[in-house]
């Protein structure tokens, strides 16, 4: 029997996975700081005994779209967005350093600074802890200054500085939790970059382009139909073959 059936099948299966990536992008069209994933198909020739016989399709996500999302004004002192390139360093769920652009910060019961997805924000070296305050200001370069509780405006104190980094994008990848990390494990911490700029009172939205995702989704659906058509053609061919053999 012709193996075209199997090739068409892998095409359809890989196609479905590509569709999942696009579906995930669309599901996160409103997620703060979300970065869309790309999907691409690659041909994987299979070398048989004599010559390359079949080329299977293989879906992969070669990269993440690092374009900035739109900035949404919230007016909240604890919402920060990164203007241009750069990342906020946080402690991931597994205790290692991770990077994110989710800037809806909040304060824990003991003064720890958390991002919206409950990760501790790193300062100069250690996670940031903020003493009790009347007023807080997060500066352009991540400097946090507060007016301590019950003190006058002349008592402004600089507390810590949010660790802002800007490693080359080709060294970064998304981890299982949607946070970003260095591709090379154990490459050491990324040094803070003084050029990364924050804007307070804004949040970075998702960078998913709904129209683009919809178009990809439609084109993938049509491709899928072509694969299924191929499967049914291969089936018809096999049937015709069987008929001929019956006559014989």
């Amino acid at each position: 029997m012709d193996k075209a059936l199997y090739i068409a099948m892998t095409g359809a299966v890989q196609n479905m996975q590509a569709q999942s990536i696009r579906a995930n992008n669309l599901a996160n069209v409103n997620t703060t700081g979300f970065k869309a994933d790309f999907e691409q198909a690659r041909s994987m020739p299979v070398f048989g005994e004599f010559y390359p016989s079949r080329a299977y399709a293989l879906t992969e996500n070669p990269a993440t779209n690092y374009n900035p999302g739109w900035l949404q004004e919230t007016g909240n002192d604890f919402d920060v967005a990164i203007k241009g390139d750069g990342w906020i360093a946080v402690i991931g769920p597994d205790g290692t350093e991770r990077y994110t652009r989710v800037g809806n910060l909040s304060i824990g019961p003991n003064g720890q600074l958390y991002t919206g997805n409950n990760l501790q924000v790193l300062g100069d070296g250690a996670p940031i802890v903020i003493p009790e305050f009347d007023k807080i200001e997060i500066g352009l370069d991540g400097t946090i200054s507060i007016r301590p509780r019950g003190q006058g405006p002349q008592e402004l104190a600089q507390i810590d500085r949010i660790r802002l980094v800007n490693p080359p994008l080709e060294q970064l990848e998304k981890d299982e939790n949607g946070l970003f990390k260095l591709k090379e494990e154990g490459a050491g911490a990324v040094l803070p970059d003084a050029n990364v700029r924050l804007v307070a009172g804004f949040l970075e939205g998702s960078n998913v382009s709904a129209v683009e995702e919809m178009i990809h989704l439609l084109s993938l659906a049509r491709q899928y139909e072509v694969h299924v058509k191929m499967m049914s053609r291969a089936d018809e061919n096999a049937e015709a073959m069987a008929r001929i053999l019956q006559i014989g």
Partner: protein
Amino acid sequence: MHPSLWISKTGMHAQDKQLSVVANNLANVATVGFKRDRAEFEDLFYQIQRQPGAQSTQDNQIPSGLQIGTGVRVVSTQKVFSTTGFQTTEQPLDVAINGRGFFQILLPDGTIAYSRNGQFHLNSDGDVVNGNGLPLEPGITVPRDATNFTVGEDGTVTIQTPGNVQPQQLGQITLVDFVNPGGLQAVGSNLFLATGASGDPVEGTPGQDGLGFLKQYTLESSNVSVVEEMVNMITTQRAYEMNSKVIATADQMLQFVNQNV
């Protein structure tokens, strides 16, 4: 089955929740002292189908793997404690907090709840109570013959009684503050309860220790911005529609397989 079905389901589910949050905010657009909620979205974990950087042969590495995200969820709702405005009234028992701080309200079970709603009333005993009849803590009882009720900026309550030239001090309204007001648990009726996330209440005199001054004849408006909520509603609806479109597409693909194979 088609994974996109489930991924888009999470998308629709999250938008659904977001709409509930928006609806609740809009419903409370005129509620005194209401603080709006904000839903926070988070992408779910990623399934690694092929590990990026794994060896394809002894000498070669797979250049990029296949990680498929599994959708989105609303990870938390955050109360936004910004203040937008005050409205002046002609009721002496309307008190607003200009700054940080909460009134303390004594619940029937003896515990204390916290509120920004300063729309107080008198009950038949002359106690200062909130709209639901729950007394302010520390309690203040106004005598029947009081002619004038004054709340000072620092929370001092004084009254005037007939035949007395000197005003008489009745009591003192105190306020409490929390390290993390966003961690308070909203229980409805404009009340909040302290939680492990909010930290313990710190009591103080209005105007001191970072607590706001009190303003009599004033009410704090709801901080819901109608325009912002309407825009949120539109983006939520569109995102919902697009996720349902993905479900329809995935469904059509499965249908196509069923019909053609």
